[in-house]
């Protein structure tokens, strides 16, 4: 019924009243006994004095009570204020068993509970931030006013703007692409994937927009997936298929024409027939050659070709391979210079395959150099690598085509119906890579010659990090256009 504090206060006042009345009573009884009280005025005086004392004592008691009551309340107010400001780690004394004690212990529980909840929320937040931050895809969050709320690191890189600058800006200012912004504002029609170019490198990025409800607000999550490599691979595959069909079509068409001519009567004319058969033979040879090279390339790429590595003098290997092309060079009026060091330059190589590489490159150099030009072949040791440099004074390569030189079927001059399959350089690239090395081409431009450089590690293809581009760049400094 009565709470403990009420009991205490009631008890205090009861004691006060009883004490005063008792004192008054005792005094009055004594006064009547020794007749010191005679007149009503005397009595009034005594009662008045007693009342005065009672009031003073009551006031003193009130002050005492409120102080002892307010003090714990004050303390709890302070604790609560600090909790509101974020300090959840205070020790709350639970002194008494009364209502204040109960209040204090409730506060303690609240503080504990809050601490746990905050820790859980913080963990979750950190987890989500880690996921977003580690994603390879870019993510942007846009509010219903079209302003950027957040973006992850991948998005920062793709869009070349950092989150701090982007926050609060409209998505147009951050993304700057009309098709992407349209995706956000228009209702997503069909699930037609949208691919846009972003950034200075013009990376191709697929855009996926997903609306998300967060409480009462709607946000849009924009996912940016870098599909540049994928598209490039698709393009190469498309080109490959188109190229193979095209390359096969021409010799097959010639063969068909020759066969039909023979069927139509040329057989009756032996000299003509023999000539046609000769030409058919040439076409069939060409086709076989192409198919051979294609198979070779496929074998090398799938790793089914086993190279035998032995220590050999690279200089000798290169020189003997290049020499095989001297007759052809002379026929075309081209000077072939071969420069190898006097001392052996040893490396772990597959001599036969490396010769294939050299023959291929020198053959190309001769083919694409006009008469009177020079093709030079040099071998040199460069620290842990052996370099083979084949330079010509031929027709050169325009800068934008240099990265494509080593693609399959890539032929330098599209308009010329040139001989060759266009696979030679692709084979060279894979053979060099199988040695753990690299090959690249540089050219000052059209008409200014080309230089092919092959480097293979002296130790052979077993060392770690030897085929890393970064390691090579550090090693050689400028590499021109690293094509592989």
């Amino acid at each position: 019924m009565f709470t403990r504090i009420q009991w205490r206060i009631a008890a205090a006042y009861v004691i006060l009243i009883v004490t005063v009345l008792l004192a008054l009573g005792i005094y009055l009884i004594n006064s009547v006994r020794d007749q010191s009280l005679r007149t009503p005025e005397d009595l009034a005086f005594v009662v008045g004095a007693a009342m005065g004392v009672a009031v003073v004592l009551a006031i003193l008691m009130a002050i005492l009570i409120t102080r002892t009551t307010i003090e714990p309340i004050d303390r709890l107010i302070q604790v609560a204020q600090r909790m509101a400001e974020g300090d959840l780690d205070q020790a709350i004394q639970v002194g008494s068993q009364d209502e204040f004690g109960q209040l204090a212990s409730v506060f303690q529980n609240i503080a504990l509970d809050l601490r746990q909840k905050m820790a859980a929320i913080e963990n979750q937040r950190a987890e989500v931030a880690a996921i977003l931050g580690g994603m390879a895809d870019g993510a942007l969050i846009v509010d219903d006013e079209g302003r950027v709320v957040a973006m992850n690191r991948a998005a920062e890189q793709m869009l070349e703007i950092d989150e701090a600058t982007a926050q609060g800006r409209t998505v147009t200012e951050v993304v700057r692409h009309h098709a992407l912004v349209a995706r956000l504002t228009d209702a997503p029609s069909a699930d037609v994937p949208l691919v846009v170019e972003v950034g200075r490198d013009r990376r191709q990025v697929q855009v996926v927009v997903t609306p998300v409800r967060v409480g009462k607000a709607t946000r849009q999550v924009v996912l940016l997936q870098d599909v540049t490599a994928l598209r490039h691979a698709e393009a190469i595959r498309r080109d490959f298929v188109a190229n193979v069909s095209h390359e096969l079509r021409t010799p097959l068409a010639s063969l068909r024409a020759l066969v039909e001519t023979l069927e139509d009567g040329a057989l009756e004319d032996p000299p003509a027939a023999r000539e046609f058969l000769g030409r058919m033979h040439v076409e069939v040879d060409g086709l076989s050659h192409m198919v051979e090279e294609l198979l070779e390339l496929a074998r090398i790429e799938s790793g089914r070709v086993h190279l035998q590595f032995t220590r050999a003098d690279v200089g000798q290997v290169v020189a003997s391979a290049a020499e095989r092309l001297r007759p052809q060079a002379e026929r075309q009026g081209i000077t072939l210079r071969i420069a190898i060091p006097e001392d052996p330059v040893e490396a772990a190589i597959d001599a036969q395959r490396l010769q294939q590489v050299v023959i291929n490159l020198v053959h190309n150099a001769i083919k694409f150099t006009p008469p009177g030009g020079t093709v030079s072949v040099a071998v040199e040791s460069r620290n842990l690598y052996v370099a083979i440099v084949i330079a010509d004074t031929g027709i050169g390569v325009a800068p934008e085509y240099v990265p494509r030189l080593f693609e399959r079927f890539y032929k330098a001059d599209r308009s010329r119906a040139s001989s060759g399959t266009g696979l030679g350089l692709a084979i060279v690239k894979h053979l060099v890579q199988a040695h753990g090395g690299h090959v690249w081409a540089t050219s000052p431009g059209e008409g200014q010659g080309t230089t092919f450089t092959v480097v293979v590690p002296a130790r052979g293809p077993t060392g770690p990090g030897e085929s890393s581009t970064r390691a090579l760049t550090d090693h050689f400094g400028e590499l021109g256009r690293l094509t592989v």
Partner: protein
Amino acid sequence: MSGRLSFERDLQRLQDDTLLLASMVDQAIGSSVDALRHLDTAAAERIIRADRDINARRFAIEEAAITTIATQHPIARDLRTIIAVLHISVELERMGDYAAGIARIVLMHGDQELLKPLVDIPRMADYGRSMLRQSLDALVARDTTLAIKVASEDDLVDALYDQVYRELLTYMIQDPRTIDRATWLLWVAHNLERIADRVTNICERVVFLITGHLNEMNASSY
């Protein structure tokens, strides 16, 4: 909504629309040169059709700008912002026209091949697009220094144009049968040079927006 807040929204919308228009123009420039490189007539026709959208957008921006001036009576910097955005959208629309012009030259080729592989022309286009992107960066960041720097890059494009001009001239002198195709490529280069010039105009407007002064930057030599 308070008047000021809705006015701020209108200004932001105007600027955003200009950025979107610029994105369309940037794409048109890039794809027109790509279409030229491969003589892709289908792509060229798409670009010419898309130019209508560019024109429509520019008129929409103009209307919105005029409406804002009429209803909100802006003064000082706000007025300068609206006027600058108006001018910039006009420049962008002209740049879109130049891109469509390049696409038309693709169609002019008909069955003929390109006179020569394109080297400097794509570089001019790249410069122009990079300048455009940076000029808009300057607009968004209200950065006068950047605007001035971008305008000075017009010299690079002019130098490339000189180079292309001389090279095509030698073709024409050596073989009169190449005059048609050489002239077409010359027009393409000229369009790209004009595009870069327009970007310097945009930079002028950006500086005007920020400072209130209209200075001529980088007078063109053509």
